[in-house]
């Protein structure tokens, strides 16, 4: 589904990503871990077209996407969520959901069209799914950080993506809520068929969730494999404990 081959990205003299290759198969849940500053978010940004890459190739469902811009890649069905939440703060949650419907056919007539009632039904269903149903008429900016993360997740689902890139979905979320979130991510994967690539610092979460993992350190790919193997990998442990 997603193939990243030998991608490099430099910022001035800093090598943020050096010849990174990862592969995500359809229907998988893949984890991406690594200490702070190891280049995880840079890799995400490269994949979704937020900045151009220096070398390498990124393919999504067989299409080369490394030269496309963010909205074009989003319209192909690959969405990302942000580490710091991003919602449309001065409109209500329902309105956030409505405008998150796919934007693949935006001719002038559609731009001025009303929202069909099915969209509201779907929006309510998904807000119920993430547990924000009763807050649906509140302004999104008034929600707590954790709730905004959930709203952002629901907005991404509203868009009906084929693949979701989640940047630390559990950061800043109340520990009692995290289990619910893991469950919802799994259901999105199993029931809606959405492939997931997840950056996560919470080891308990990612070991539970991911079927396969990649570990980055200092901009390089350090290890890959199933969670059990990554957990025992000496290089990974050393990277986290600072032996590098």
């Amino acid at each position: 589904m997603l193939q990243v081959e030998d991608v490099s990205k430099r910022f001035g003299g800093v090598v943020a990503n050096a010849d990174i290759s990862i592969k995500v198969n359809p229907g998988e849940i893949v984890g991406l871990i690594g200490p702070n500053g190891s280049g995880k978010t840079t890799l995400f940004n490269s994949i979704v077209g937020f900045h151009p890459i220096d070398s390498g190739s990124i393919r999504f469902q067989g299409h080369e996407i490394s030269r496309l811009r963010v909205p074009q890649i989003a319209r192909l069905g690959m969405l990302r969520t942000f580490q710091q939440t991003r919602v449309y703060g001065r409109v209500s949650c329902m309105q956030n959901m409505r405008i998150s419907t796919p934007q693949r056919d935006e001719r002038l007539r559609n731009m001025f069209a009303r929202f069909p009632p099915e969209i509201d039904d779907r929006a309510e269903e998904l807000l119920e799914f993430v547990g924000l149903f009763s807050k649906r008429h509140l302004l999104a900016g008034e929600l707590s950080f954790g709730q905004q993360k959930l709203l952002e997740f629901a907005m991404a689902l509203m868009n009906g993506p084929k693949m979701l890139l989640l940047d630390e979905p559990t950061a800043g979320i109340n520990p009692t809520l995290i289990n619910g979130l893991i469950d919802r991510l799994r259901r999105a994967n199993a029931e809606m068929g959405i492939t997931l690539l997840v950056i996560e610092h919470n080891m308990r979460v990612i070991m539970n969730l991911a079927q396969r993992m990649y570990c980055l350190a200092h901009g390089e790919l350090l290890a890959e494999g199933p969670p059990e193997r990554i957990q025992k990998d000496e290089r990974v442990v050393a990277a986290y404990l600072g032996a590098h």
Partner: protein
Amino acid sequence: MTAHGRNLVPMLAIGAAALVLPFLLPDYRIQLAFLWVMILFALTWDIMGGQMGYNSFGNILYFGIGMYVCAVIQRDAGFDYFPGLFIGLGAAAIFSVVIAAVLGAGLLGLRGHYFAIGTLGLGIAAGEIASGWDYIGAGSGMVTPVFPGEIGGRQTFFYFASFVLAVVTFLVLKRIYAGRFGLAINAIRDDEDKAEAMGLHTTRYKTVAWCVSAFFLGIAGGLVGNLIGFIDPRDVAFAGATYGVFMVLMAILGGKGTLWGPVIGATVFHVMQEVFWTYLLGWQRVALGLLIVVIVVFFPQGILGWVREHFPERFGIRVETATDDADAR
């Protein structure tokens, strides 16, 4: 956002007042016509400035273009008065939209303050060009054709034309704000990066938003040229220092990003402005300047913005008492 019934009452009241006022106060028909034009100014400015978060100081450009395009067609195309006027207004609208689309492609890549600064020069540049171009009368301006009917008929006709145009503008905006367009430009205002990450055609929406402003401003320009009868390039057509600033202030005073805010703001502003002219002659500009300072300092959110903050339930912002989401804290 607001229920139908609650909108209907003020709308009917305004409609009734609009029909009666020109006959009750026949001497004030031009000022009353300008009230509708002011409301239109504030409404069209708010599309970009309020709903989309792009402060434009160049919207006066489309007003001036519309005014000149309409007047030139009336003068040179050889139609009778009314066909000439209607064709002129249509051409004014189309021409303004085309200019907006072309300028939008260049300017709407700028964000935030850069866009505001980029638009600042538009009205000034256009005023300079118009006052140096002999074909449209250069600095001595243009005179629009004489209205055919009885004396005073011109004021009544253009009063009602301005009224109808303002109402149509309001209803069109109400309709498109309720759909995809309205939410898309709100999304651009709240977080443009997020809107792009969700696949929104942001550039297309921004350009269309400016074209909608330009469409109504162009027609308004055509009407006002005929209402006044004389087009001065700097003081009427491209009057950035007066109308160009007023449209921003009226929208802010009433409440940016709301549908009724610009209507309320324009009404309050226009009435105060007329009062200053009448009772503070000689000091009217000073009073107006102070009013502007007071607006920005004490009403940064505007009248409706203040009401919304204090009575959010009136705007449909509420929590439901259901407990089905007890786990979402």
